[in-house]
């Protein structure tokens, strides 16, 4: 099937997440070999998602676990779970 650019925008997220059928994937890839705009759109959004995933490495504040334990200690020692 021949896709137009609007169709590519709509499927952009699903394409990058691998949540589309093999047929649609093939059609999208056929389109982007012909369309530089859509190719740039897919590439840039892909790069952005990779960059965001990198943020996962942001560290916990120093002493976080200790303070959490302290906060929970009293509750865990005294409460009853009903």
């Amino acid at each position: 099937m021949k896709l137009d650019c609007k169709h590519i925008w709509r499927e952009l997220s699903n394409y990058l997440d691998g949540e589309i059928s093999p047929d649609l994937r093939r059609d999208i890839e056929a389109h982007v070999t012909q369309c530089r705009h859509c190719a740039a759109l897919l590439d840039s959004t892909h790069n952005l998602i990779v960059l965001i995933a990198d943020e996962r490495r942001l560290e916990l504040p120093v002493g976080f676990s200790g303070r959490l334990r302290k906060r929970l200690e009293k509750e865990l020692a005294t409460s009853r779970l009903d």
Partner: protein
Amino acid sequence: MPDLLADRKNREFELIDRVLGGHHESFYELISPYEHRVFMTAYDILQVAADAEEVAQEAFLKAFRSLRSFRREAQFSTWLLRITANEARMRLRKRREVSLDSLSPNHEETDYTPILLADWREIPGEALLREETRRLLRESIAALPENYREIITLRDVNGLSTAETAEILGLSQGNAKVRLLRARIMLRDLFIERLRSKTKRRLSREAAP
């Protein structure tokens, strides 16, 4: 489900049984793999580390108190992050005294056109490495509307699946996908704007005698 995930799930259910059976200390072991994700979820909604830490503590407390109500068809992590997101939203509401009712899924159905394709520039691969770029990204995430920031945080920062993300936000998977698409496109546009103005500033500095 892969064995590793099933093993972890069974292990978690065992720990939950122990906590509910009175061995409250096991709660620490249950939550320790999720401290980071809980904090990040709160942080990305609130954008202030001290608030995020408090909300994270509240979320863990709440999870402990209501552990008996956890239904085991869901993943423990999904349930925990939903509590966290709710706590963070409540905090935000208190802080700003604004209603988040605009999150209604009906808003997802209207048609949307991204900015002109001719304006789009590739985000260069080498830019991924620079600290400055990371700062611009954090600024761009912070500039997103709340409902977009939430979904980007859960799906792309925390790496949850679409199904888990939808469950945490109380959306259908279809609506979650639509919102995610909008959020990613808007974030990309915000980010590109910032990259461009940064490049422009650098070029004008270099051009100066």
